[in-house]
């Protein structure tokens, strides 16, 4: 009973938020951006071919949320709807990338610079600059290893793994976001986890690893 009550309360609160968003309330949009900017950016960063595009895509996602909120009628939760927009943007970006930039991407490819001319490598973007290497060396190394392996898992398994195991969505939400049925979600998870496990068990290459667009 408590869960039903909390679910109903949540739905009525979300309904009030949606109404404010439809009315163009700046406060409501500010709250929405604050709530979802990090998770949307993370999702995009892990699902697009070029992580440098994630920031632009994140902007575009929220602009599309603003444009499309008038057509949102509560068929799904607001969060699911926003993630669907993000996944669609990521998918479009990957298609564009495959058409125009299909090539091998070395992990040492520069993706920017530090401002003083020193190039920032792709492998460096996987490292959380806030953690001290002396205190979290082992954990950091493991995290980098998992990130690299995840980048090599082909789509659509990678997105399914991210939504389920990284973001923590339930099967039904993952199915709704990806526009597939529950059985497909299950099979993608089985396959995706198996691929990721093989990648993690493989010996670390000493040569330049290659991330294949897939």
């Amino acid at each position, binding site marked *: 009973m408590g869960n039903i009550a909390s679910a109903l309360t949540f739905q009525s609160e979300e309904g009030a938020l949606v109404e404010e968003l439809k009315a*163009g309330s700046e406060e409501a949009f500010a709250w929405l951006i604050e709530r979802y900017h990090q998770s949307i950016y993370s999702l995009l960063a892990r699902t697009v071919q070029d992580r440098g595009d994630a*920031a632009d895509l994140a902007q575009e996602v929220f*602009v599309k949320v*603003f444009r499309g909120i008038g057509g949102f009628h509560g068929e799904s939760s607001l969060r699911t709807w926003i993630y669907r927009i993000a996944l669609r943007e990521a998918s479009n970006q990957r298609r564009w990338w495959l058409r125009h930039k299909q090539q091998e991407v070395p992990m040492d490819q520069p993706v920017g610079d530090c401002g003083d001319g020193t190039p920032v490598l792709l492998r460096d973007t996987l490292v959380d600059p806030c953690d001290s290497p002396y205190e979290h060396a082992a954990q950091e190394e*493991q995290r980098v290893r998992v990130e690299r392996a995840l980048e090599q898992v082909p789509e659509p398994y990678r997105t399914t793994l991210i939504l389920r195991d990284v973001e923590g969505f339930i099967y039904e939400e993952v199915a709704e976001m990806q526009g597939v049925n529950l059985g497909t979600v*299950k099979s993608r998870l089985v396959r995706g986890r198996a691929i990721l496990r093989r990648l993690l*068990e493989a010996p670390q290459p000493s040569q330049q690893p290659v991330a294949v667009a897939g």
Partner: protein
Amino acid sequence: MNGCREIRDSITEYLDGRLTGRAMQEIAAHLNGCRECALECRLMEDTQRSLASLGPVPEPPDMLLRIRVAVSHEMARSHRSRWAGLGLVWKNTLGPFLLQASAGFASAVLLLGTVVFLVTMFTQPVAVEASKDEPLGKASAPRLLYLSSPAVGDQINASATPVVVEAYVNGAGQVYDYRIISGPTDADTRSEVENMLLFSVFEPARFFGQPVRGLAVLSFAGVAVRG
């Protein structure tokens, strides 16, 4: 559910808690007794845990600001376009007819106002005074205005029944003849009745507003006041 193959196919759902309680128990029981499947499950669990520990990807420091600016620009653009859209609708629909519609509306208001003004100014009904109303063609009977004589006489007072009298009234409102039609007709009573009629003042009968002779019926009764 038996066989390692079926168990391993279900490990993903087992780890995600997607199976029924009975199925979960069966798998747990199998894992307790099968080393290979237990290892498979543990490796899969480690993979899941590795993913769950990743956390969010660090975003650029100005990411939040960039998103807010982008949405603000979109808001401003949509407000301008909304007003522009309304202006376009106005221009294409009501705008061309605005002058004619305004002129027509003003004319209608002016005409209606003039009509109402004229009606109220020249057609106010005159208040009717019913007391002075003299219906045309109707004759009115004589009407006793007042008795200027003293109180009713002793004979009439003593009578058990009222004395009903026909009084013939002339155009000047004076009684010129009478007849007792009910009650005592003795000499004393007749004397009292004559006395009262002599000093009575009548409104004469009228015919087309002109005073004429008429007939009035009067009833005299004694009034006894008991103290």
